[in-house]
Structure formats: structure tokens, C-alpha cells
């Protein structure tokens, strides 16, 4: 592989770089970096004028469904969707069947990730924090780390017991890896299928109160203060109160981080009025005030990461009564478009900050090696056209599933290619 990336805008927050330059990539490495480089005709030239060259994006919250739910998604189809969405890495959640709660399953997921899609997408398993995600006994974390786990979570369910959470934080701290909490006080959310508030009242729908999320985060922050060395990450944060809690904890110097999904900074609970089950996810779509808080949190750095919570379900699973439908939507292929449209073009974030939220910060949280765009480094890059207008057509999705509320949405900005592991893909 020989590539000449010509005239792109390099954004590399790890080295603090933001400049227009050429890059020569040879056999997966950045051989040369400079202005107006010339290369012999054996190089394939990519004209990247007005395009972004960023360190490879990582989606630290996806559900690849394999093993166990291959009818929804496989590691292969999920990686294809990730690549098409501009991601060179994904972290897959352990709510598979069997759960990723022991070495062999974690190894299977990692190895499978290397085999599919030419290995262009790195697959990092997030392992279960407790056995079977039951919240009762610790999963064998040390073994899981050896097998490639980069964090621990019972995602889909919270770690509800305070004692179990304390021990999980303590144990994981030995590996400098975070516990990723699906923050939900389960006694308050039984049967709930949308945000509790005016819209749930209008629709007569059982509600999921915002305070159920905030209670769990508040509890966990107190535990974290007690446990000290541990690291804690709030998955898919969704309420104003939650952002306030994380902001205050960060100010107090606690090692708390959090992520937000594109749907939680784009849509409000109003979308549920259609009774379209593609508006059903957990945490649910919240209010305008919460959406505004997500943007404030992204802007001021309270929210570190944008992650999709890509959650494939088949059409038959989703085309049922709202209360019966499973939670979740796919997100890998719309994440960059929704973020540029909803955050960059509205001046919530600069492109530089966007790159931090999609690459630098999640890698730091998961203790993955930082990506530098510099001579001698491995080329792990996401190429973006920040201006292109496009319409979401779910029929074109590489995912096995079709559950998105964004079909037909007009977006600005899209990945046009990725480079990783001596492979490249251009769209």
C-alpha cells in the first residue's frame, strides 16, 4: 500500500497539531509528512483539499451481538458498518450470549475482529463486570484483561448493588481500567419505555424518570470518592442533572468521565409521539432542556466522548407495539454526520474538539495507545468531508439491522475513508 494524502487538514490533538499538509503512507506507516510533498507514480494520490485527516475514530460503545444474536448483527456486519461510518475501532459491549464474562469469549471476539473486514477495524471487547452480568459476583477481570478487555461494564443493566459496584471499582482499579456504568436505578424504571414527563403523560406511556439515572450516578460518584484510585465512566449520559453531577465531580478532581450518543444531543422525547419504535432506547430520549445540557456538557468538556450505543435489532423485533419493542437503535453510520450537523455547524464544538471526542478522549479513557499523526507512526486515520450533504438511506446500511429514527434525515459531513492496519477503504 502506498498512499499520497494530498492537501488535507491534519487534526492531531495528541501532538496539538492542526495544519494543512501532505502525508505519504507506505505499508501502513506514515513515511513522510510535510507541505507539498511529491511522490513517485506508484503512490495512489488522494486529493484531500478541504477534507479532514484525523486520528482513527473509535466508537467505545457498540453492540456487535456476536456471539448469540447473529440475526441482529455479527462482528463482521458490525465492523463493516463501523468502517462505513468512519471508525477504525469499536468497543463491543458484553451483553452477548454467552456474555463476555470469561477469557474464551473475549478472545473469540478479538480474534474474530481481526479476521473480518480485512482486519481494518480494531475490535476491543468491553468485558462484563460481573459474572453473567447478574450483578452478584465479580467477573474474572484479570483474565479478561489478558484476553484483551479494555474496560468493564454490565451494560444493558446497571450494576445495581452498591456493594458490588464498590468491589468492581476496586478490582478494576488494579488494571487502570474504568467501570462503564449503565446508570439506572432499576427499582424506579420497571416497565418504563420513554422519558417520564409531559410527553409520557400525553401518550399514557409508562415513564423512565430522569432521576433514576441521576441517583445511580450520584451514588457511584460517592463510591468513587471513597474507593479513590478507581476510574468511573458514565455510559450514554442523557439528563441535565447527570451532566451537572459529572461536572461537579470533575471539578472535585474525581476520575469520572462520560459519553453521550448522537441521538441524545439530537432528538427529544417529542419524537415518541409518532409511536415509532425506532424512538425507543434506554436511556430514553429526553427533553429539550436535556438536549441543551448535552451540548453544554460537550462544549465545556464535562462530556468527554461521543459514542453511539449502536444497538441493532431486526425489523420484526422492532415492528411491534411500543411497549413490547426492544430498546436501541443503530448508530455507527450516522454518528459523524449527526455530530457535524448538530454540533460543529451550530458552533457547539470545533472540528478539533470533535476529533478529541471521537478519538483522543475515548482512547485515553480506555488506556489505549494514543494515535499521533507523525512520521514513523502507524497510519490509523479517519478521513472526513465536513461539508458534503447527504441523506440517510437506511437501505444502504452495512449493518444487518435497520432500526434508526434518522432515515431520510439530511446531514452535513461524512467519513470518506479510513486507514488502519495497513489497509484502507475509501467511500
Amino acid at each position, binding site marked *: 500500500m502506498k498512499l499520497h494524502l494530498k492537501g488535507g487538514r491534519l487534526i492531531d490533538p495528541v501532538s496539538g497539531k492542526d495544519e494543512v499538509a501532505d502525508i505519504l503512507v507506505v505499508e501502513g506507516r506514515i513515511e513522510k509528512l510535510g507541505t507539498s510533498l511529491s511522490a513517485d507514480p506508484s503512490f495512489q494520490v488522494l486529493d484531500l483539499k478541504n477534507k479532514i485527516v484525523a486520528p482513527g475514530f473509535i466508537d467505545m460503545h457498540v453492540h456487535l451481538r456476536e456471539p448469540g444474536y447473529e440475526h441482529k448483527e455479527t462482528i463482521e456486519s458490525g465492523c463493516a458498518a463501523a468502517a462505513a461510518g468512519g471508525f477504525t475501532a469499536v468497543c463491543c459491549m458484553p451483553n452477548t450470549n454467552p456474555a463476555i464474562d470469561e477469557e474464551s469469549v473475549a478472545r473469540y471476539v478479538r480474534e474474530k475482529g481481526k479476521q473480518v473486514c480485512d482486519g481494518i477495524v480494531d475490535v476491543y471487547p468491553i468485558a462484563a463486570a460481573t459474572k453473567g452480568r447478574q450483578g452478584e459476583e465479580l467477573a474474572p477481570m484479570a483474565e479478561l484483561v489478558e484476553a484483551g478487555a479494555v474496560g468493564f461494564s454490565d451494560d444493558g443493566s446497571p450494576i445495581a448493588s452498591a456493594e458490588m459496584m464498590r468491589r468492581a471499582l476496586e478490582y478494576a482499579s488494579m488494571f487502570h481500567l474504568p467501570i462503564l456504568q449503565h446508570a439506572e436505578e432499576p427499582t424506579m424504571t420497571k416497565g418504563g419505555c420513554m422519558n417520564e414527563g409531559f410527553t409520557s*403523560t400525553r401518550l399514557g*406511556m409508562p415513564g423512565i424518570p430522569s432521576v433514576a439515572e441521576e441517583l445511580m450516578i450520584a451514588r457511584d460518584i460517592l463510591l468513587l470518592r471513597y474507593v479513590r484510585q478507581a476510574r468511573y465512566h458514565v455510559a450514554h449520559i442523557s439528563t441535565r442533572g447527570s451532566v451537572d453531577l459529572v461536572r461537579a465531580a470533575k471539578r472535585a478532581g474525581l476520575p469520572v468521565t462520560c459519553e453521550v450518543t448522537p441521538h441524545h444531543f439530537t432528538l427529544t422525547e417529542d419524537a415518541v409521539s409518532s409511536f415509532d419504535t425506532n424512538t425507543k432506547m434506554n436511556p430514553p430520549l429526553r427533553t429539550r432542556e436535556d438536549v441543551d445540557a448535552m451540548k453544554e456538557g460537550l462544549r465545556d468538556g464535562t462530556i468527554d466522548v461521543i459514542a453511539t450505543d449502536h444497538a441493532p435489532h431486526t425489523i420484526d423485533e422492532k415492528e411491534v407495539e411500543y411497549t413490547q419493542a426492544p430498546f436501541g437503535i443503530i448508530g455507527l453510520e450516522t454518528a459523524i454526520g449527526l455530530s457535524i450537523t448538530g454540533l460543529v455547524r451550530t458552533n457547539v464544538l470545533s472540528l478539533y474538539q470533535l476529533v478529541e471526542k471521537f478519538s483522543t478522549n475515548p482512547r485515553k479513557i480506555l488506556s489505549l495507545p494514543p494515535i499521533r499523526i507523525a512520521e514513523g507512526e502507524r497510519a490509523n486515520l479517519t478521513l472526513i468531508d465536513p461539508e458534503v450533504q447527504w441523506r440517510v438511506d437506511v437501505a444502504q446500511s452495512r449493518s444487518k439491522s435497520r432500526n434508526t429514527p434518522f432515515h431520510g434525515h439530511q446531514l452535513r459531513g461524512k467519513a470518506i475513508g479510513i486507514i488502519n492496519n495497513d489497509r484502507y477503504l475509501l467511500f
Partner: protein
Amino acid sequence: MKLQSRHLLGLEGMSKEELTLILDTAVSFREILDRPIKKVPPLQGKTVVNLFFESSTRTRISFELAERRLSADVVSFATAASSVGKGETLKDTARNIEAMKIDMVVIRHSAPGAAHFLSRVVDANVINAGDGAHEHPTQGLLDMFTLRETFGTLEGLRVCLVGDITHSRVARSNIYGLRTMGAEVTVCGPQTLIPHDIERLGVRVYHRLEDIIPHVDVFNVLRIQLERQKSGLFPSLREYHRFFGLTKERIDRAGKPITIMHPGPINRDVELSADLADGEHSVILQQVTNGVAIRMAVLYLLGASN
């Protein structure tokens, strides 16, 4: 003048003109119900299926009567089990029925939005006969019809809904319909059974019957379900009856007549005392009669125009 939609999914968003059209149309059908021969031909040759995924006696019989009196061919399907539990999805059930060339579907289901869902997957006209705690539009209409019959107008009428507002589709349809028609709607019940932000629907909230009794013309009393006690929403039926049960003694203190409504079935001497339910200001049985007329009007307006 005709209805905007080819379905009746809920009263929210319907205009005053549309609601009035249904109520006015029901007046003529109400007259037919007093004739010796109660059958008229508008839906001759049409097939209506009643899909009841939740147990119901009164609403189902009322719809069936309305359909038969309009000369429709009627098929009824009732199951207490949810479609999912039975192994066939609602969508498949709907598609199967569609394949049998049905013109109209009446659906009762425990999931909010079930009628909306159905209206998206079938070509037939869909009438919502109750979807979870969301809406029960024909109940709302028959309540409005009964009140208009009693008071002459709904404009300025003061109606209080008493009881479990959170889980009540009757409450929502009443709120949407009555407010559009210019009535003043209040709710009264334990705070644990009043849903979040209900004030934003334009209703005032009370927690003591004594506070609202002087200010109402009508109490529409909702059924309290025992399972709400088990899920921790109120302490006991005895306490509920003492603080939120409507009794003759309580009403008499108002020193003026207050009309009593109930969508049924009544828990006698729990939410409503027997003497009030059977008393001179109760219009509960008129509600039942009017229910048939309202459903005839809705079926006629949606079905006869096809």
C-alpha cells in the same frame, strides 16, 4: 364537513368542528335507538372486525351493537393474552385480517399506540377502542355527548375527573375532548396517581374532594384498580374510599346537584357509593346507551364515506 383522518385514533388534535360533527351525527343515531326497528343500512356490505386484546365486556358489546345496527357484517376476536405472548405479532394478526378483506378494524389493546401501529400496517379504517393508558376516544365522545345532552352545551362546563389519572385512557380522552369543546377540566386524586406535568395539558390538580366540590358541575369517577395498591401507589382501598371515594354525604354538603359519571365497571362503595351511582344525578346508564349512538356515528362517518 367530514373528518380529517380516515381513522379514529384519539381525540388529541381533533378540532372542535370535527368533535361537533361526531356529536351531532350521534344525535340522529340516538333517536334511532328509541325506534322499534333499530337497524339502518349505511354499512351494508361492509365488514368490521373487533380485535380485543384486552378483556372488555361493555365496550365490545357496544361496538358490536353499533356495527350490527348499521347493517355491517361483524367478526369479533377476543383474547386476554397479548399477541406477543401468543406467538403471533400484532402486525401478523393485522396482515392476516387484512388478507380477509376487512373494511374496518376496532382495536382494544394494552399497549399505548397499538391503534396507531395498526393504522400504519393495514388499509382498513382503524378505530381505537382503548390503547393502554393513552386514549379511549369513543368513551371520551360518549361522555361529551351525555354531558351535552344533560347541560345543553359543553362550553364553560366544569368537569372533574376523580381517581387514577396516570393509568386512565378515559381521563386523557376526556381532557383532550372536553378542553377542545371549551369545558374546564380538573383532576382530583392521590398525587401518586397523577402523572407528571399534567398541568401542561391545561388542567388543575386537586388532592382533596372538599376543595373541588364547590367548583364543579360534574364528577367523572374513574375505576381504581387494586393492583395499584400492590405496586405501592396507594395504601389501601379503605383509605382511598375515605379520602377519594365519592359519597352522597360528601356531595350533599355542596348544597347543589352534581352530575355523576363513571365509565364502568364500578367498584361500588370504593370510588363511588352505591346511592350516588344509582341516584337521581347519576347519568351512568345514559352513558351506556349513548355509547352505542356515538359508536354508530363514528363508524358511519369513517366507514360509509369509503
